[in-house]
């Protein structure tokens, strides 16, 4: 009923050009649904379609994640000062410094905003590395099967048992702590679960009709893997990628806490570690240690929620057999 009415009114707008502008405004303000219909109708932009895609993600997680992403991409907009600018040390929160200052007089809010980029970069870069390795190993062992599969999966199982964080601690202690070694080490050591998931999915897909027909037509294995199998792995990879990012961020924060982070690149983990080792706790400065910790938690949670949401939706799709063929 409502929609019909709206369309009727819309058609009247197009006829009467005199009152057009004012009525159009009224319609836009009246109802969000009408507004979307209006957009779809007039400038060929169907928001509803995008919305349907958006629903596949967890809304809250997506919202938080966007916030942190903007923070990371455009820190200048949010940070009141430069993170290296010095003021009076150990200041309590005030209007000039919303979260006070730390032991060497840096504004904590600015540090926090600039830290977003570093923490998220470590997470995403190492997740990229591990996803790539996992994808390669899983794809090859799932597609070729046989001895190669046994070898690669055996290797995966062997690596899976080695405790990651103690190994990273040793590597971090031997190598000079820098953000790139951290990314590399985290990325190189967390691909096993991705490889397993990709393998099982590949085993499933390679029996599908389109892969068989591609093989009959004589396409090379590499081509089949790249253009037939990979696109279908994407929805398994995305949640895994998100979860890998989340766990890499936690690992980074933990390693920074041990003093194995890159001190020149102040991530949230390093802020927290400094607050612990340089007297933020003893002086009871909650504005120093709480914000970075909460930021890590929220950011990791937003990323993990997106991953979980996507995974859940995929499971539902799988039950209904949407992506079976």
């Amino acid at each position, binding site marked *: 009923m409502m929609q019909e009415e709206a369309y009727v009114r819309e058609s009247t707008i197009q006829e009467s050009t005199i009152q057009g502008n004012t009525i159009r405004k009224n319609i836009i303000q009246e109802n969000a649904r009408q507004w979307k219909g209006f957009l779809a109708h007039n400038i060929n932009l169907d928001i509803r379609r995008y919305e349907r895609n958006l629903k596949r993600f967890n809304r809250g997680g997506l919202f938080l994640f966007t916030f942190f992403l903007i923070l990371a991409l455009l820190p200048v907009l949010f940070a009141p000062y430069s993170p290296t600018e010095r003021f009076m040390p150990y200041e309590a929160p005030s209007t000039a410094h919303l979260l006070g200052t730390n032991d060497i007089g840096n504004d904590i809010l600015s540090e926090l905003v600039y830290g977003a980029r570093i923490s998220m970069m470590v997470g995403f870069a190492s997740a990229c590395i591990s996803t790539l390795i996992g994808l390669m190993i899983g794809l090859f062992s799932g597609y070729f099967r046989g001895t190669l599969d046994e070898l690669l999966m055996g290797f995966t199982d062997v690596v899976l048992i*080695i405790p990651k964080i*103690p190994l990273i601690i040793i590597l971090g*202690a031997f190598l000079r702590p820098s953000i790139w070694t951290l990314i590399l080490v985290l990325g190189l050591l967390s691909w096993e679960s991705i490889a397993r998931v990709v393998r099982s999915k590949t085993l499933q897909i390679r029996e599908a009709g389109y892969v068989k027909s591609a093989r009959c037509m004589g396409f090379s294995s590499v081509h089949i893997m790249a253009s037939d199998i990979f696109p279908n792995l994407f929805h398994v990879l995305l949640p895994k990628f998100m979860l890998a990012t989340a766990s890499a961020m936690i690992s980074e924060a933990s390693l920074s806490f041990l003093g*194995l982070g890159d001190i020149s690149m102040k991530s949230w983990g390093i802020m927290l570690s400094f607050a612990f080792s340089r007297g933020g706790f003893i002086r009871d400065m909650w504005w120093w240690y709480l914000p970075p910790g909460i930021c890590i938690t929220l950011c990791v949670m937003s990323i993990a929620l997106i991953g979980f949401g996507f995974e859940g939706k995929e499971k539902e799709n799988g039950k209904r057999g949407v992506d079976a063929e």
Partner: protein
Amino acid sequence: MREGLKKVVRYAASFFLIVTLNFALPRLMPGDPVKNLIGEDVYVSEGVMEELRAGMGLDRPLYEQFTAYIGDLLRLDLGYSYHLHSPVADILRDRIGWTLLFVGVSVLLGTALGTLLGAYAGWKPETKANRLACCGFITLSCTPPYFLALLCLEIFAFKLGLFPFKGFYDVPTPGSIAHHMFLPVTVMALFSASRNFLIMRGSVIQEKGQLYALYARAKGLYDTSILFRHVIKNASLPIITLLALDFGFLFSGALFTEIVFSLNGMGTLIYDAIIGKDYPVLQGSFLVIALAVLLANMLADLLYEVADPRVRRPA
């Protein structure tokens, strides 16, 4: 039988990889290998340095060094810490008992708590309390363990003064130990529960849709007995796998918790070793932790066979 053999090979390979890593790291890393083997920032005179260089046999071929290293390991000789002036094996022996106690108690508690709550949350996922629990545990699993520990320390030990904030005990009585361990164990148990909770919840949601659950209901069983007598058995299988794979992760979480609570276990040992660049201690700790994780995985494999008859008698 073939599966069993595969597993044995796999564990042997893991063991070999761990030992090799431990052997290769100080020799591969940039810098003087002697420095890497005894640790930086140590004051040793030139004469001692030369003596060590000769004694370690770094000029010999690699395989000879490797066999010598294996021999040392078999004699439980993990090297000598020039920072703490005692053999690494002795230092580790003092510390590991406490850490294992700490990890063991909290993992057991966490698993019990996480499994039970998770099973209940999966059984009735739509009630408000269970949704709340789910949100809470997701948040917990996304918090770095040491941040949680810091918060607890701040609130319960500093602000409210309910618990002591450092050490395992004042006087070595069970009461004092329990009092000191309460906070760290709670933190670790919550942390491990959060991971078990999420897995268990998903697994129960999946299992309760199976036909045997429907049949149990058709027989007229109460809700609780369907859950606890039928569903939970099948649903807890992923937990066993997770427990083994997670053991390393939880162990590292325990290290951080120990550092925050100044417990004299492996965590603080590693922390001090990192600050002092005491490589022998770091290596020894890595070896011991890796072996503990390996053992936990083997144990889980055995448990899995006990819990799931389908694994024992493959069709």
